[in-house]
């Protein structure tokens, strides 16, 4: 016999895993950019917002069928990645890293402002891509939205892992992360790799935004808070490890759900939002290279 308490716990864990997987997906983009170019992207939230809003605009505003709207959204996301890399970051090659980091922050604010100007700050209904009628996994009710978003994310992460491991471009990306100069001497266009990292980042963030929008049934600027979770995830998982990102995302998702479920009633709310960042601070103090990162990540 399973008690209500246990069901509650399992529910928290399951939804935590589902949302955490989306964090992993978004964090993948962040880590790719860092690995390829050591640029820290301070605008992960805006990339998520951008994807969610473009998806909303194409599906509901322009009333395009999903089969057209989703690929179109991803194409627009790729264009955004190219604009960021070519227009904003490439002119800053050779400048101090602090300038490059600041410009990611500045550009993100511009993106947020443009979204606000174009579509306003009201909550926009987002189409449910998956049914929300819960089914029972043993005694635990599970909503299909969570299940399918988890499955989708895992398939995407698996596909990206295979791409990095087995395709020649993926190999060139790993080589660039390992030693940029030598990769160049072997004919790898490092600028091309940077651009590709940004495009993958904007695409996975857009996918994350679409999935989150679908899970929540609406998009508004509070989606940006989810994008910010990328920071605790990569600090927990390590900046240079794709496997770490997956584990880190799921751990953060579960942790915030548990703290929300058990501590919010005690403290009167807010713990859920804070918990991931408390972890960020603790990890930085105890294991600055992340749970799975290499100790020498700051080499060179």
């Amino acid at each position: 016999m399973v008690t209500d308490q246990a069901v509650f716990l399992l529910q928290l864990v399951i939804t935590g895993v589902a949302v955490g997987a989306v964090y992993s997906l978004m964090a993948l983009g962040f880590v790719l950019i860092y690995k390829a170019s050591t640029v820290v992207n301070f605008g992960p939230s805006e990339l998520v917002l951008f994807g969610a809003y473009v998806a909303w605009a194409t599906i509901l505003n322009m009333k395009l069928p999903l089969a057209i709207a989703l690929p179109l959204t991803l194409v627009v996301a790729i264009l955004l990645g190219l604009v960021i890399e070519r227009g904003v970051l490439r002119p800053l090659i050779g400048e101090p890293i602090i300038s490059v980091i600041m410009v990611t922050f500045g550009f993100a604010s511009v993106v947020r402002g443009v979204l606000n100007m174009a579509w306003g700050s009201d909550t926009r209904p987002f189409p449910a891509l998956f049914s929300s009628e819960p089914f029972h996994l043993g005694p635990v009710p599970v909503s299909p939205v969570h299940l399918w978003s988890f499955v989708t994310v895992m398939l995407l992460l698996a596909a990206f892992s295979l791409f990095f491991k087995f395709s020649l471009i993926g190999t060139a990306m790993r080589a660039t992360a390992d030693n940029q100069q030598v990769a160049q001497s072997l004919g790898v266009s490092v600028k091309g790799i940077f651009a590709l990292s940004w495009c993958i980042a904007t695409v996975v963030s857009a996918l994350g935004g679409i999935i989150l929008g679908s899970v929540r049934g609406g998009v508004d600027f509070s989606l940006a808070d989810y994008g910010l979770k990328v920071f605790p995830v990569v600090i927990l998982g390590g900046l240079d490890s794709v496997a770490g990102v997956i584990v880190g995302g799921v751990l953060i998702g579960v942790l915030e759900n548990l703290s929300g479920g058990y501590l919010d009633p005690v403290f009167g709310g807010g713990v859920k939002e804070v918990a991931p960042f408390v972890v960020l601070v603790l990890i930085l103090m105890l294991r600055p290279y992340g749970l799975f990162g290499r100790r020498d990540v700051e080499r060179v």
Partner: protein
Amino acid sequence: MAAACLSVDDLCVNFGGLRAVDHVSFAIESGRIHGLIGPNGAGKTTIFNCVTGFYRPTSGRVRFLEHDITGFRPDQVAKLGIARTFQNVQLFASLSVLDNVLVAKHGHMRTGVLAEGLGLPFVRKQEHAVRDTAFGLLDFLGLADLHRKPAASLPLGHQKRLELARALALEPKLLLLDEPASGLNTSETQALGEMLGRVRERFALTVLLVEHDMGLVMNVTDVITVLNFGRKIAEGTPKDVQNDPEVIKAYLGETAGAGRG
């Protein structure tokens, strides 16, 4: 005189107030192994870095076959067919032996990111061909059995061979070797000399060799250019160069006879 594979014309490189390379000109004929020697600080590696696009010369031109490659980026130079090795072996430490070689093959794919990401059949076919070539190279250099190992786990001798395999994977017309014998013992150096001979035969390469090991240089090179303090002081066959009084004074002066001449 046969067509020049590489020509360096009136090259100057300044680092701040220091002139590291001072009006150096030389040409390498196709198919030759050309030595570039000189005491430490003579400017050999600086010239290497100008040819491979890592430095931009202060003045002067670098020509490769029919291209003027002065100021090209390293990846552009590589794509035209110039491969290099590094003074201190520089492998992708976290990648496998095979992946190290495959990186050089990335530029040979006639596909696109999207096609590769989707794993389309024509991409698969090309990737198979590329993998076969890479295996062939590892086999040629005796590393095929180790292809799954991380590059960092190999002993130095193997790492040097892997670096050579990776350079050859670019299918270069010109191969630049920066002190390939450093860190090797006498018998390993001898084996390296023999391997260079076989490499040249099999791949129809032109080689520019920077090396401190005079035995190796005198054995394998056809022509030698000698630098001292950024200036060219002599050029000719190994025999000519060894007997050049200027070279003996600058290079072998204090230890006359060390050149085994």
